């Protein structure tokens, strides 16, 4: 680019000129996309009286951290639930679903892609069929069938570990690995478990990263299932809790927005750190799924 500018300044000036409207459109769209996020952050810092007072919310001179300390003290009894506990619940559930899901689904995908066993073809077909069933279609019967498990931690975790989409994404990745790699290891006397854990799994980091991020994103925002199953404030995950908190009368909007910032912050941090994986993960899930 620098070379081109040096050797051909005329073209670069025309090019530069054409970039101005391009950036203008990008900027205006960017502002529109960012506005709700900016509003959330501003409202979390502004006095409660400014949340619903038009542009006053953006008055930086009034900003402070009182809503953050406010939300911590509003949510600090057993009847309201404790702020730290909502995070602990969401964190535990998400880590368990992502972690156990990676192990269980990649193992299944490997067995489907590489091993020969009775019922393999049926299992593969079943996975493809299950891929079509959205969670929403089974939420109601599950609410009835597992009603005895209401208000437990495990019922928030167990149903989401086995995941047909994750199996499918791993499966497509594994079928892309040359078979000669497995065979070389088998000749050396390695069994299927060793081949999988010591050779295939370490080679498949991009697939693990994509699936991890995708599951993390879905699980952290999970709402429908907790609505049906969780009423105990000590077991509520964050998205359910913010809707309960926002529905309280009178609503403390500044604190609700501070809660919102805290809720989304972990995801944004993960997003910024693993941006490339994030975007690839989303793209691959949709293109393949």
């Amino acid at each position, binding site marked *: 680019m620098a070379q081109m500018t040096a050797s051909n300044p005329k073209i670069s000036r025309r090019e530069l000129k054409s970039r101005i409207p*391009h950036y203008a459109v*990008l900027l205006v*769209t*960017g502002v529109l996309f*960012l506005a*709700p996020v900016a*509003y959330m952050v501003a*409202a979390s810092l502004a006095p409660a009286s400014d*949340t*619903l007072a*038009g*542009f006053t919310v953006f008055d930086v001179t009034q900003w402070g951290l009182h809503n953050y300390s406010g939300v911590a003290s509003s949510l600090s009894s057993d009847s309201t639930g404790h702020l730290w506990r909502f995070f602990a619940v969401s964190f535990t559930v998400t880590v368990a679903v992502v972690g156990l899901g990676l192990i*269980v*689904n990649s*193992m*299944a995908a490997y*067995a*489907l892609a590489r091993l020969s*066993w009775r019922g393999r073809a049926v299992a593969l077909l*079943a996975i493809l069929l*299950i891929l*079509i*069933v*959205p969670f*929403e*279609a*089974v939420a*109601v*019967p599950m609410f*009835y069938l597992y009603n005895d498990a209401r208000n437990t931690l495990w019922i928030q975790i*167990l*149903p*989401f*570990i*086995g995941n*047909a989409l994750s199996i499918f994404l791993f499966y497509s990745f594994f079928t892309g690995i040359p078979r000669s790699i497995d065979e070389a290891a088998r000749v050396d006397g390695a069994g*299927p478990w060793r081949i*999988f854990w010591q050779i295939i799994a370490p080679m498949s980091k991009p697939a693990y990263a994509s699936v991890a991020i995708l599951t993390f994103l879905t699980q*952290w*925002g999970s*709402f*429908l299932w907790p*609505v*049906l199953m969780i009423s105990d404030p000590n077991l509520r995950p964050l*998205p359910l809790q913010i*809707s309960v908190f*926002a*529905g309280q009368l009178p609503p403390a*909007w500044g604190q609700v*927005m501070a809660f919102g910032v805290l809720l*989304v912050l972990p*995801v*944004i941090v993960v*997003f910024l750190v693993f*941006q490339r994986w994030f*975007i690839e993960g*989303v*793209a691959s899930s*949709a*293109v393949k799924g």
Partner: protein
Amino acid sequence: MAAPAISLLLLFVAVPFLASIGFSLYNVRLGDPRDPSFMGLTQYVRILTDPDVSGQFLDALLHNLIFAAVVVPVQTALALALALLVKKNLPGMGVFRSLYFLPVVFPIALVAIIWRLILARGDQGLLNSALAFFSGGAFGSQDWLGSELTALASVIVLSIWQGCGFQMVILLAALQQVPPELYEAAELDRANGWQRFVHVTLPGVRTTLVFVALYTTILSLRVFDQIYVLAKSGGGLNEDATRTVMYEAVTAAFDENNIGRASAISVVFFLIVVVLSLIQRRVTTEKEG
């Protein structure tokens, strides 16, 4: 190796799914001391034709269809426009890509709460103050979520804001695979920007566009979280103008304890999803073949 994942999927997808078909034929209620009585297809007949029940269900179906009919073309077009905007490798483009993608990491329950404040009625809401400001007071305050005319439209806007970045990323990946030689050839033929878009870009990403559109259609049918949060957490959402199929299923199960009817709704919901998925699968296979 596949056993853990497959047993989990059986327990939490296959069994509940089959159970929902069973439940839909019975008068099932939670905590009912009497045994459920067999009703045949009565639940289906009722949700489709009984004036007391079918009104809400058919409304819900209609809202899903309107939602899909607006969101699918608008969001896909917007996502394509954004993808084209951020495709060029210009300085700062990574920032804009992340910016447009940012809402995707927001749990939809939180999105609903942020927008509930932005759309607040009276002149305190951010949108109402912005409109009053830019129109010099000529544009009066609207009750965006409460009015029958704008309630569904408001939900559509916040859903597009949250979901658009997802489609953008997929389309961006497709755009980057269009061979640059095609653009060079078009330029030699003195095709202008619009002609290049119609004759090179669109055919290049056609299958991905169709895929994205069908994928969004299925997502449009699954809409639940934002409606539930806005209607139940003091959002003042006009329930009658926005209820969706999943909202009906959950309220039938949860508020009316009518598991039978809720299961029938789930089964109908699933059948619609299956038809769309089959179309989608065909399109994807064509793409690969």
